[in-house]
């Protein structure tokens, strides 16, 4: 028998709102490019605040073990970044994209990073130039 495909409006079924678009994530580092600790908590709090303003709420995942190979020193930095993400409201996201980019660059500069990891809609990318 052919399996029938059924159509459902899942958002309407829950009386929910479907304003949310693609997922945007920022990797918050806990070490700098030399392997020295950085004040991760304050950046997590700032990211949660900013992403909540953009998506109505945000989530910080538990720290995960990650590694970054410093191309200048060839030193492998083992770190525990925290991924903070939100499902963006597209209009607000576009409106505040400049502010978000400035936040990421400031975090890169002030925590002495070689690169900051980001994801948008499942696409991973890095920012390495932290100049304004």
């Amino acid at each position, binding site marked *: 028998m052919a399996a029938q495909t059924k159509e459902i409006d899942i958002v309407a079924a829950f009386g929910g709102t479907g304003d949310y*678009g693609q997922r945007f994530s920022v990797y918050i580092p806990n070490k700098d490019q030399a392997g020295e600790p950085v004040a991760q908590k304050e950046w997590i709090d700032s990211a949660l605040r900013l992403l909540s303003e953009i998506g109505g709420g945000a989530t910080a995942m538990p720290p995960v073990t990650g590694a970054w190979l410093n191309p200048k020193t060839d030193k492998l930095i083992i770190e525990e970044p925290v991924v903070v993400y939100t499902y963006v409201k597209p209009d607000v996201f576009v409106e505040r994209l400049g502010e978000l980019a400035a936040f990421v660059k400031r975090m890169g500069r002030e925590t002495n990073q070689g690169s900051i990891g980001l994801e948008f809609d499942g696409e*991973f990318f890095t920012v390495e130039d932290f100049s304004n």
Partner: protein
Amino acid sequence: MEKSNAKIGDFKLVARTARGRLKNISKKPTSLSVNRVIAAFGGKSAPVKAGNVKDPITLLAIREALVDRLRSTGGRPSLTGDSLRQRVQISAKDWKKITTIASHFEVGRHKPSPAQVASILIHFALEHASPSAIDQLMHTDIENQDTSKAERQRTSARD
């Protein structure tokens, strides 16, 4: 040698799922262009998508694609989509690999055929070759051919 093949045959990725039977028709906001967002950050795109499942040429990725695309209309399940049946010559060595890969899957109660697995593998390979990249490669190739042709002409003129 036979022993190691038997070892490879010890595991099977079995998928029993009703995925795809329900289609969510909730309205979603318009998607934003990923490339525009990356450009806004002055970011560098990574060559692969985040998450292993989408990483091409893993058994898990092939299984995901088979689960998504294999549908039964009563008989042996076939691949959905606007597929055309084509005759493609494949080397015996490649076919053996494809057959081995296919032997590791079950989707529902069905075993996908090696041809269905081959179709998924071709799709994965082409997914990472954008039309602009192909176009660029073709131009580079044509330019290289022109350069070597001119070089040959110069050499024969000297001789």
